[in-house]
């Protein structure tokens, strides 16, 4: 089948029942999306599907033909990344790629989110190290930077 990932259409030969996450990591070598639970509970595997943040660890790849799938690798130039680096937002970093995806999706629909809105948007992502306060600050910084570049 054909899959559209990060703006490119690629032909894959995986069993259609394969979780999207496994296809991204193993077939396409995109390691930024991570396995945390395989149960749609932790958010480490989050990707954008048609712009919405979605878990990829259970989602069968066969259901995604023609959908616009974007992984964290497509966000390398996104202001969210620069903001996370500026705030040094993270500790072990395992959760970060999924959180970046959720944050980018939030900022695409809400240009000036409050702290509570940011927290709510990230509630599907778990962070075990307790880096939450600086992650929230990083998203606030990214929002300000995006606003600044539009002005």
């Amino acid at each position, binding site marked *: 089948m054909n899959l559209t990932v990060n703006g490119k259409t690629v032909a894959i030969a995986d069993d259609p029942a394969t979780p999207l996450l496994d296809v991204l990591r193993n077939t396409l070598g995109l390691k930024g999306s991570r*396995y945390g*639970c395989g149960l749609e*509970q932790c958010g480490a595997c989050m990707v954008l599907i048609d712009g919405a943040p979605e878990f990829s660890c259970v989602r069968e790849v066969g259901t995604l033909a023609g959908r616009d799938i974007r992984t964290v690798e497509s966000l390398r130039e996104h202001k969210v990344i620069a903001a996370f680096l500026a705030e040094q937002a993270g500790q*072990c970093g*395992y*959760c970060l790629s999924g959180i970046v995806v959720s944050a980018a999706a939030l900022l695409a629909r809400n240009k000036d989110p409050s702290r509570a809105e940011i*927290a709510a948007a990230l509630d599907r992502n778990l962070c*075990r190290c*307790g880096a939450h306060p600086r992650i929230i600050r990083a998203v606030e910084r990214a929002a300000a930077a995006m606003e600044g570049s539009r002005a």
Partner: protein
Amino acid sequence: MSDAPLPLSVANNPSPARWLRFEAPGVVHLSVGKVEIGQGVLTALTQIAAEELDVPAGAVRILSGDTDNAPDEGSTSSSLSIEVSGASVRLISAEVRARFLQRLALRLNCAPEELSVSAGAFLRAGAPTGQDYWSLAPEVDLAAPATGRAPRKPLAAYSVVGRNLPRIDLPAKLTGAAFIHDMAPPGMLHARTLRQPCRGARLAALDEAAIKRAAKGEVRIVRKGDFVAFVAENETVAQRAAVAAPAHARWENVAAIPPGADEAQWLVGQKAITRELGDPLTAAQGEVVEAMYSRNYVAHASLGPSCAVAEERDGHLTVWTHSQAVYPLRTSLSNVLGRGIETISVRHAQGAGCYGHNGADDAALDAALVAELVPGRPIRLQWRREEEFAFEPVGTAQVMRLRAVVDSRGRPVDWTAEIWAGSHVTRPALGGNMLAHEALPTPPPDPRPMDPPEAAGGGGTRNAFPLYAVGAKRIVHHLVERMPVRTSALRSLGGMANIFALECFLDELAERAGADPVAYRLTLMEDARAAAVIARAAEMAEWTRRRGPAGTGRGIGIGFGQYKNRSAYAAVVAEVEVEQEVRLARVWCAADGGLVIAPDGARNQVEGGIVQAASFALKEQVRFGETGIASCDWDAYPILRFSEVPEITTELIGPPGAPSLGMGECTMGPTAAAIGNAVAHALGVRLRALPLTRERIAAALGAG
């Protein structure tokens, strides 16, 4: 300089050549035995080396945790990386710098004092000599043991230490392949395991055909004794086999867990090794106050499940692991696999944060076993989420009964802490078992109960002696012999439970004395640095203004501790709102870790500890089923989420002239205590058992 004892890591690895190399021009290769577990230690150690050598921080490339190429620094644990490895890197770097200057002085026929270093280049009286570390390196002997006598840079001259450098590991972790989980060497196979449900269980039957059908792809089932693994080219196939396998396996000799054993109180009355420490009982007269506190079992619950890569090739086994202890792991692998230590290399690769002894070492043995059974191909073995929850060692539950004799002014004059707990450390290097060993044809003997000695900070006894002036003090420690599940090191060991108990008890004593909790602490505290963090945290929180009457549903509380009574000091103030459950509204923290190498990194650790301790204190408890751990996913084992995390204000107030004190675990106990005290203030009723769940609040209010 003095002949003070060398830091442990230098004593064990005295040759500077083991630590520093100058090969490619402009690049300093620094090798260390401590590993990155999300705490930013590699960046901080880089800063220390750059400072003492006078090279740009960007010139330092760091290699960590490699049994072939890095010094043996034991385990990355107990908040010792900056205290021990940092001191070692500083000493080694100073020594190397001095050797280069001596060599150049000989060459130039001048006194070493005329020479200086700038950005790796040597100057004489401030003028270039045309020489640098790299040009001179072939002439300088770095093999001779370090003496510890080289002059170290004075604090006033620091320009790299104490500054915030960006973490070197963070960019890749944001967007790319950064973890052991992401390794994909050519020819790699994926593996999963079928876990023995408990020690002693025997695999009576395994329906391999059914498992292969469920895998929907080519999978090889390998066995050694009762250790079973599924190996496939395709990870999805290996995973499917492992998910299906438990339903197609029949085990015998599966031991039952006693009902109710997942509650801390179960520990009281179990057979235990009992020790008494501290002062003998005194004849102190006064009112006797007693209270019993507890903490339930807590999981490390790393966000990424344990993983390892191993390859057996030409008689040599190479294992990549996110273990905290690569050298000790090599020794353990040698023992379990029955092969010479020289035939094994262990290399660290980063994993998700571990917060102690989780499944990392066990996964490394799993991968090594599969590699031996399937030689010639790299084996990537990853645990499933349910496996991580069910089979990692967990932090033991602990019960504390505190007893004080109180004088007529309401001050304690005699203090006893009686503690019941399982082992706080069963790392394989210390005699604990690696999981798969128990499934092999020659399993190890029953694990012995063990705990770190008090000289290393203790386990169940960690932080049980109050730092306050409380008269005679003693600990009665009951180390429970047979635990229902494996327990091992979890961030701060017994320190969190003991500080929770001690600091809550202190609030209870203050209340009896009619004293304000902060003022009461300060009257009992003789250590000026401890008093300073308590006073500063209270100021930051505007304690006097905020501390209203008890029982209004809104409360504020304080907790203090000096980690291990010898590392960093921290005082935490928490503000909570309690209705049916606790909402943590604000947290303030003042901490003193002496000289701070990387202030933002230290702050990150301090605040991360606050959030993690809040999660432990408010939500977390491992639940047992009939034969093992039953809380095996994030629904059954909830942790604090973004919308539940409070705003945190932190100040680092340590004197920079004082030695660095490990900060990574210093806020765990103080946070739990501050929350416990704030909840008691909000409710007007004290809850003495962690976690402070909705059910416990309802029960306390119902009873009150």
